[in-house]
């Protein structure tokens, strides 16, 4: 099985026609499903949050079979992810896509677990500490995209689980938990 670093690529990745957007509806639906799953899987294991459709991304080509996804195909797959709520376009031109391999609500749940696991129920910490502090190491929160983190935190704020406040500089936003 072909690998991309540690990641095991699925068999369809080695079959040339999967790199061409299929015209027949049923065949295309299957193709889109396979690619959606692959993108989410890969982003989750590699902890990638933003994909640029016009940039080099390992899944866009397979040099072994000498095939590359057309822009149309890329847009089709990512649009499907967006329709399903597993991704969001970051620009009107659909050039950058935010990948939600965890939905925002799920991230909110992960943050709550993180708080409980570390006894932070009444603590104060910076947003940066949540995503890169010592306690975050080894958890999914480590290295989380800041935009996603802020949105998850806002959901929790609306639920009264915490309060977000500005710090001394733009980078110094903090959180007071009341879990």
């Amino acid at each position, binding site marked *: 099985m072909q690998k991309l670093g540690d990641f095991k690529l699925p*068999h*369809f990745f*080695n*079959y*040339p*026609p*999967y*790199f*061409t957007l*299929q*015209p*027949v509806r*049923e*065949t295309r639906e*299957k193709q889109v499903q396979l690619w959606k799953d692959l993108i989410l899987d890969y982003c989750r294991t590699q902890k990638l949050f933003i994909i640029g459709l016009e940039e080099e991304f390992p899944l866009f080509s397979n040099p*072994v*079979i*000498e*095939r*590359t996804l*057309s822009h149309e195909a890329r847009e089709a797959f990512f649009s499907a992810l967006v329709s399903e709520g597993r991704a969001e376009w970051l620009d009107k031109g659909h050039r950058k896509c935010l990948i939600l391999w965890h939905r925002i609500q799920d991230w909110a749940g992960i943050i709550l677990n993180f708080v409980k696991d570390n006894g932070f129920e009444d603590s104060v910490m910076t947003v940066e500490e949540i995503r890169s502090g010592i306690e975050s190491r080894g958890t999914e929160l480590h290295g989380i995209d800041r935009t996603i983190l802020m949105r998850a935190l806002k959901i929790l704020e609306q639920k009264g689980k915490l309060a977000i406040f500005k710090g001394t500089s733009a980078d110094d936003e903090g959180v007071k938990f009341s879990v």
Partner: protein
Amino acid sequence: MRRRPGIGGLQTAAAARDQYRLLGENVAKLRTDLMKEQLATFRSQLEEFARKHKTGVQIVEICLSTRPLNGGLIDLQELCKLLRQKRKHDREAVSEDDCLRAISKLKTLGSGFEVISAGKKKLVRSVPTELKKDHNEILELAQAQGYVTVDEVERRLSWTHGRAIDALDTLLDEGLAMIDDGHSDGKRRYWFPCVSSISSFGADS
């Protein structure tokens, strides 16, 4: 003079009723016993059927699960390989002949299962799509590299462009073929998953 039942008559009647009741009970018991026996026989026959046709059931499962990938046509060897993987823990090994026998039994169920020959390969069809001779010839041609181009079909089979396109479009619509526009030579290729090994697609040569 009206005869009225006397003690004797009553006793006779009671005895008769008892006897009828016993008879009734016996008949009921007989029927229950018979039914139990029939059910037991039926059940063991059903179990034997399931055991004998376990292979057939597994074949159906494999064909159904691979249908989205190959349009309902699968290489017999590929099918046997997947069957062996499914039955890893089964002591009974399964040969191609076992497969063919199971499929012919499935065929009698009218489920649309059929084994067709295309060139050197045997393909198992699990959808009611009728393959015309033209389609069969393309499948045969596709076995060499897993795909064909329109040029190739025209040239090798001596067909007109229209005939080639018609046949390929039908195979495409049926989900038996997939298009590939990614080759550097710019020629569209029609790939046929059913003549490739689904579990290990090879590279284009």
